[in-house]
Structure formats: C-alpha cells, structure tokens
C-alpha cells in the first residue's frame, strides 16, 4: 500500500502554501480515482451488453485508452507530497539532521530538473496533435470511434506542472531545514520506518471495519 502521510503542518507561510496545494492535489487524485471507478463501470456495461443484449459498447477500447492518462498522471503530485513514491531508504534512513536534509534537497532538486524537462517534452508531444484550425482542434484521433487524442496528451504536462509546484515547495522545505538545522521541518515528508507505517495502516484499517 502507498505510504502513510507524515507531513507536519504549522501556521507558517510555507505550510499554508503546502495546504493549499494539497487541496488541489487531492481533487486531482479524486478525479483519477473516479476514472478508475468509471473504467470498472465501463467494463461491466461492455460485458453485460455483449452477453445479455449482444450489443458491445462502441469504442470501448478507445475510451479506456483516453482514460488511462487521467488515471496514471493526476495523482502523481499527491503521492510526492506524502513521500509515497518507492525508494530504497537503507542509506538515507541512517542519516540525521543537516546531512539528511542535504541529501533530500539534492534529490528533490534533481527530480525538479527532470520534471521541468518532461513538462517541456510532454507539452511538445501534445502540441503536435493540437491544431486550432483543424476539426475538434485535433490532428490525430483514436482508431475505432475517432475521439481526439489531444485532451489525453495535455494531461501529462498539466499533472507534471503541479508536481513541479510541489517540488518547489519541497526544495524550499528541505532547504529551510538544512539552513536552519531544523529537527522537524514542515511541508516535507518525514521518514517513517516500515513497522511504524504498517502499524498505522493496521490502526486505520481497524477503525474502518
């Protein structure tokens, strides 16, 4: 299961920004979750249509392919906020204080560099299929029922831009922690060991059931 939230908050400007961005990230993740649910409904309709009414859903595969970027990209920043992207923490979990913040800062800066490049690259990928003068502004469309592909392509640069904003906040958070030598910085994910994470997850689960 994905990592558990371990981000501290206070009344500082940085923490307020973190909170604002979190609201946007949560909405985007929820849209992505609904898209997964929509995928399920679509398949159920398609299977029952095919078997019960002998009428398969037209463009079923096209719709799924259009929905996939929605599902795959929109939650990316929400995961980064909580430090949920997989990593090997055998070295970094042994570090403390300034050394830890320095490693985290360099790592987040490198990710920011990559994502800025990918915003550029994925935008130009979108740009190639978008044309104001074409019908439906589209230069390419899906194979079966001809849906324009540019909206799905646009999702990558949008989601990556939000991730860049998140990374800027984390650069700020780790940078501040490094400069001031903080012990419990706000707005950045703090390392929790696997057992503590699992215990928190089991707690949460028991409250639910």
């Amino acid at each position: 299961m994905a990592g558990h939230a371990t981000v501290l908050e206070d009344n500082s400007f940085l923490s307020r920004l973190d909170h604002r961005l979190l609201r946007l990230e949560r909405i985007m993740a929820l849209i992505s979750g609904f898209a997964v649910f929509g995928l399920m409904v679509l398949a159920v309709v398609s299977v029952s249509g095919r078997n019960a009414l002998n009428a398969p859903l037209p463009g079923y595969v096209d719709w799924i392919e259009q929905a996939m970027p929605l599902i795959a990209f929109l939650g990316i920043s929400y995961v980064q906020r909580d430090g949920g992207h997989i990593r090997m923490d055998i070295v970094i979990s042994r570090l403390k204080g300034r050394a830890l913040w320095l490693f985290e800062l360099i790592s987040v800066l490198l990710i920011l560099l990559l994502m800025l490049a990918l915003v550029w690259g994925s935008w130009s990928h979108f740009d190639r299929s978008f044309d104001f003068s074409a019908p439906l502004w589209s230069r390419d469309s899906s194979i079966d029922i001809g849906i324009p592909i540019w909206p799905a392509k646009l999702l990558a640069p949008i989601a990556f831009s939000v991730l860049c904003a998140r990374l800027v906040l984390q650069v700020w958070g780790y940078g501040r922690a490094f400069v001031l030598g903080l012990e419990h910085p706000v707005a950045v994910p703090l390392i929790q060991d696997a057992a503590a994470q699992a215990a928190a997850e089991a707690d949460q689960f028991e409250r639910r059931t």
Partner: protein
Amino acid sequence: MDTIEIGLWVTAGLLVLVVTGMRVAFAAGLAGLVGLVWIFWAKFGYDPERFGKALTVAVKTAGQVPHSKVASHTLSLIPTFILIGYLAYYAGLTRALFEAAKRWIAWVPGGLAVSTIFATAGFAAVSGASVATSAVFARIAIPEMLSVGYNKRFAAGVVAAGGTLASLIPPSAILVIYAIIVEQDVGKLLLAGFIPGAFSAVIYGLLIVGIAVVFKSVGPPVTGFSWKQRFAALPGALPIVAVILIIICFVYNPFGDKAWGTPTEGGAIGAFIVFCFALVHGMRWPEFKSALLETAKLTAMIFAIIWGVLIYVRFLGFADLPGAFSDWITSLEMSPMLILICILLAYAVLGMFMDAIGMLLLTLPVVYPAVMALNGGETVSAAESAFGMSGPMCAIWFGILVVKMAEFCLITPPIGLNCFVVAGVRPDLSVQDVFKGVTPFFIADALTIALLVAFPGIVLYLPSLAG
C-alpha cells in the same frame, strides 16, 4: 566513447541515485534523459554549439514516453486490481475469511494456523499487498492463536509467511507489470501464478500440521463448531473465491472452449462484486472516497515507475546495453541453469533492500533479454532450448520465479520486511522471535522455489492449456 560505455556509465549513475535514496521512478527517468542527451551529443561529436539540439531531441524523445506508453488497454488492469484491493478492505473480508477458515479447519492439529494461512492467502491475493496483509492479520489472528495456547513465535511466523502469498494468486498487479515490461500475454501469466501460489499455501498448511503433530504444545486443535455454524460462515468468504475464479475464467474457461472475455473485463467484474459487497457491508461516501484516493495514489506511484523506467529503456535501446549484456551472459562457460540460479540468488539479495515492483522494473529491461538468450532466444522451440521450453513459456516461467523470489525476500533474515512489520505491530514480540518462528516457512519456500525450477510443469500447466 562508444554507446555501450555510455550505457554503463549512465546505469552506474542510476544505481548511485537509487542507493542514495532518490525515488526510483524519477531516478530512472533522469538517468534515461541524461543518457539520451549524452548519446545524441556524442553523435554530434560533442560539438558545444549543437548541445542545445541534442538536449531538445532528447527531451522530446523522453517527453512522449509517458503518454504513449500509458494510454494502453492492457495497463488498465493495474488500477482495476488496485481498486479491488482497497474495496476489499471495506468489505469486511478479512474477519469473514478468517472466521470461515477457522470454523472449517481449526479442528486439525495446528488448525488455527492453517486457517490463518488460507485467510491471509485469500486476502493477500485480492488486496495484492503482502506487507499490509501481515500487519492486519498480526492484529486479527495472533491474539486468537495465543488465546488457545499457541506458541508465540510460531503464531508470528505463520502471519509473516502468510502475507507472502499475495503476488502469485490472481489478481496480481505485479504479474501484470511483469507481462507488460517483457511484452508477454498478461492472461497467461495470471493463469500461471495460480498453481504455484496455491501450491505454496498448501505446502505451508502441510508444514503447520506436521509441526503441530510432532510438537503437541505448539498448536493445539480447536473443536466445537457445529455444521450449522460452518455453513453460516461461508457467504462472507464468497467474494474472494468469486473474484479469483472470475479472473481465471475470463482468461481461460475450464468449462468450455472460449474464455469469458479479457483479463481487464474479468478484473472489472471482480471489482464490481467486491464493490457491491462493500456497499452491503456498510461502505458509505467517506470510506468510498478514501478507497478512491488510495487507489489513485498507488496507481500514480506504479505508473510513475513504469514510465520512468520506460524512458530509461528508450535510452538503453539507443545504447544497446541489453544486447551487450545478453552476449556476455551467453558467452560464459557455465551451464545456463547455473547462470539462471545465480540470477535468482541476486534477486534474493536485491529484494531485501527494495520493493518488488521497483526491483523488477529496474532490472528486467537488462536481465530479461539475457535470460531469453540463455534459453536460446524469443522464438526458440522447446526441443532446441536450454531449459526445455519454448521462448514464450520461458518468459512465463521466469516471471513466476522472480515474483516468488521477491516474496521470499519478505521473510528472509536478516531484513525480511514482513517479519519487522509483524514485530512492529505486536510489541510483545521481538524481531528475533518472528524470524525464529518464520524459519520453517523460509525453508519450505526455498524448497518450493527449487521445485518450481526443477519442474517447470507446475508453472506452465495452466498456461499451456490456454493454448
């Protein structure tokens, strides 16, 4: 510097980034991007004026990977399987399964532990989360086992081992990921996981009964359930059985000629059943929203690694590193089986430090072509191959083996994650206690893997039926 040298340098850089704690998805993407820039610039003869051009081409090449690779019908199986897992949390399936298994099996020696194994196997399969399953069952099953006089270490070992049954029994997101990375039939891989997964569960069960018969005080039988009570417990466990069977039938129909549909449809129908069950069990908007958010999170995380690694793979293609590695492996003067065993052992070590999904995605682009080359190539026939199976069958067999290895790592001393988790959830147990308790299962797992290597038929029987 030739392209292979660039490939090696960039791969070494990637390893440094991963070891120093950079998120795997982004480390792979960055390595791929830097590698592409390097290779294109090298093609321009390192001309400083043309660096900008190399950068632009590299960024545009990398920038089209996320959308073009992710917009795929087959990949939609992953979010569906994840949704099943989170909905299963709200459908009350854990306690219901454990209760049903207990009422039916607890009368045999060690019966409560066998019930735990079957309940964890079922829930882990559907939730796909080994570590979380162990954490949850450490709370549900260990207290019950202790209350009837089970040995503490033994009870903890059972729960830690049970969680490892997640990845083979369908629905398994990790097998889908493997199938996509190596471009093999997803349905056949899902089918292939069933027998080894069920086989592991049965081996665990027999081992527990054996231990309980020899050491009477370890796991006393529990009696006193009437047939009425037994049948009353069954409906609660049905969704799990239904999900597993439906996914299998959508890939291969044992009752007729044609499968019921595609794996994606099977996954969606499975999710729908669990969703209805969760609604009946009292799931409302707050829980549903939380299930959707968690699904979105895990999906985004897995997809980030997929496209990140695929950017790196795009670079590897230019550098031809996989080809060079395959040539080197096949030129070694060792038997192919010995090399395969070395590769599996390397996974056992790596798996202790890294999550299974990250480990497979990072290594497969280089290791998989080498294993296929060892067998004689992608299109080799069974008669001419080194391992006695055709190329596609070898791909399935190797997939099941590496996924089983990744699960094996979760209970391997000294850093098997499941054991730490069980100890973390139960303050009265030390990590050493759990490792001692899990030792018989660790040995059984090692033997199971040896059997899967020696008798590939266990893995390949079902996929060969599917044609």
